[in-house]
């Protein structure tokens, strides 16, 4: 305690002593100017991004016509009963259930399809890797609205002759939609570790292929697998185009329908979905940060 006081005192003494003849602080002045500019830019940008979110929150709390403040929409969502607001929430629960199920199925199919393929071509064939990159990022060039035009006949055939009209089968289309994002996330992970040496080392130690894959590669990749899954979940939860044009029910379609009758509840639900997305990605960030720290700690 005393020591810190003493150092503070000397620092002040130093400052006093040099204050009279202190040379011009050109760099410090520039840093100050820069930080003012940075502050203004970030304030404006974040303001633009947060004002609509804030408005949504207010909108759910204040009845637009009567101007009365109440928690009714939130109560309705968390009790599952919208009768007090005259709204039927069954559509919403149905849509939410479908979307959550779709998240799970889509992520599973995506991982099964992408991870082994990307790992093997990364080790063995540059040419095939480029081909897969091209295919996987193709959905960025073919917008969902275009894809839906072509998916229409396929889904008509699927639902009539092979499967059912159950919205869960939307997962096939959704895997395509999340592919570019998932590909990027996994590619980042693959490029940051030396997979080839890892595989050669474990193979030379006598490990079988499945063992190499599950015991060596997956543990090294799981951070990017997590990030691919999270971004896929965010995409699936926000998907509207394919579901609405193929006439299937999911969260977004339900929100839209409910919005026609009770916009407060659907706005509150949108805010919740968004919050869920933010929590997911912030959690991902914190997890990877903690992992990096523990690795460095070792």
């Amino acid at each position: 305690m005393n020591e810190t006081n003493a150092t503070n005192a000397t620092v002040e003494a130093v400052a006093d002593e040099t204050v009279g003849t202190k040379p011009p602080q050109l760099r410090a002045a520039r840093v100050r100017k820069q930080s003012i500019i940075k502050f203004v830019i970030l304030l404006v940008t974040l303001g633009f991004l947060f004002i609509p979110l804030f408005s949504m929150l207010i909108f759910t709390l204040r009845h637009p016509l009567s101007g009365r403040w109440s928690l009714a929409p939130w109560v309705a969502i968390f009790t599952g009963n919208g009768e007090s607001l005259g709204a039927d929430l069954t559509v919403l629960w149905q849509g939410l259930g479908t979307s959550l199920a779709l998240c799970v199925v889509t992520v599973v199919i995506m991982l099964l399809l992408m991870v082994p393929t990307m790992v093997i071509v990364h080790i063995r064939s540059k040419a095939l890797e480029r081909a897969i990159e091209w295919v996987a990022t193709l959905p960025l060039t073919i917008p969902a609205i275009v894809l839906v035009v072509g998916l229409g006949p396929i889904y008509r055939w699927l639902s009539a002759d092979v499967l059912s009209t159950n919205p869960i089968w939307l997962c096939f289309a959704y895997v395509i939609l999340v592919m570019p994002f998932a590909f990027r996330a996994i590619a980042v992970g693959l490029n940051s570790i030396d997979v080839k040496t890892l595989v050669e080392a474990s193979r030379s130690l006598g490990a079988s292929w499945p063992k190499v894959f599950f015991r060596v590669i997956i543990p090294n990749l799981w951070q990017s697998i997590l990030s691919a899954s999270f971004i896929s979940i965010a995409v699936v939860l926000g998907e509207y185009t394919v579901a609405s044009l193929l006439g299937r029910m999911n969260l977004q379609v339900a929100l839209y329908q409910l919005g026609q009758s009770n916009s407060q509840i659907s706005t509150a639900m949108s805010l919740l979905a968004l919050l869920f997305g933010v929590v997911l990605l912030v959690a991902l960030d914190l997890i990877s940060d903690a992992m990096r720290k523990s690795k460095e700690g070792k």
Partner: protein
Amino acid sequence: MTADQKISASSLTAGAAVKPDEDAFKNDPTATLEGVRGKDVTKAAKQLLRESAKRGGGSIQMQDVVKIYPGSTKRALDDFNLDIKPGEMVVLLGGSGCGKSTALRSLAGLEDIQGGRIMVGGQDVTGVPVNKREMAMVFQAYSLFPHMTALENVAFGLEVRGVGKEERRKVAMEQLELVGLADQAKKYTQQMSGGQQQRVALARALAIKPRVLLLDEPLSALDAKVRVQLRDEIRRIQLNTGTTTVFVTHDQEEALAVADRIGVMNKGKIEQIAAPQDLYQRPATEYVATFIGLTNRLPGASNGEEAVVFGQRLPLLPGSTKGDAVAVLVRPENLTLTLPSQHDSHVGERARVEVIHFLGSLVRVDTVITSGEYQRWNKGEQLKVTVQLPASELPAGLAVGDDVVVTPRAVAALAC
């Protein structure tokens, strides 16, 4: 400022002098104005200024510079003083965190200083922004502009000065030729090796004919072989252009090879600044003696003028302490090694050979003093002594475990 004032300032502060042979002056930084009187002083100083202006050199004075990084209470530079003559190459040498890079960056204007002042060519530049200081810096790495070819990089400084296209192309080409990269002019710098990139960076810095050339560990990111090649080349070019140069490094070998003078830095200050040989043979402090080259700490008794080590009397360097139990710093090559059977003198101390390193024409022998007498002095640890001698002087058949006698030569050493 008039020309006369400039002269008096520089002749006073720099202690500048001129000898008929300019190169002799440059290689003799201890040259002084003594013996030159009256009119001759003015004449000599004028001559010097003319020469240095012509050759692009500027004198540098950093006076009582204080640097405290924002958010820190430690002084990165603590009343730092440095005085460099025009055309001189000074190396700032020190371990990491000693403030050597901070000193260079403050000189360049890349860091604010909190006290003191910086003069270049007699002009106070403390309040002058970086881009008006007419200095050029070569960074450790990554400083070349990736979207420009080597030629465009070198021409950049001229471009911002508004030099015409043809002219700057010509000058840039000359500079590239100087560093031996004329055939790579059209290449983007990312396609070049690390050594080539640093050559381009050097050419780019020289192209603007700076008053002062600043080199911030320019070789530390390179391979050992390229490093040696490039450092010799930097020295050659610097001697040719006569640009005042400050070179920062942590590598003592590099420093010893290129410098006119080396300033050894410690805790934000220069501990000693002197010509390489002086620094090695006549270190002023223990820090300098141990930082540069190998040294043995041997027990001795000192009266401030002379010391007795292992029974041998040796002269002491200025700044040595007095006392009955001091440490005397003796270089390995200032010790002799004889077999006990051939030892015919009363001085010297018995030791046992631990390791013998053959270094080609030299041999370095690590020994341990046998007598326990010095163990107490050495805080309970065995006293180890390293001796270096020409291979031809190594006693025939010497093997690990043999007994020998170690004797200091009567060469000036530092006691502390």
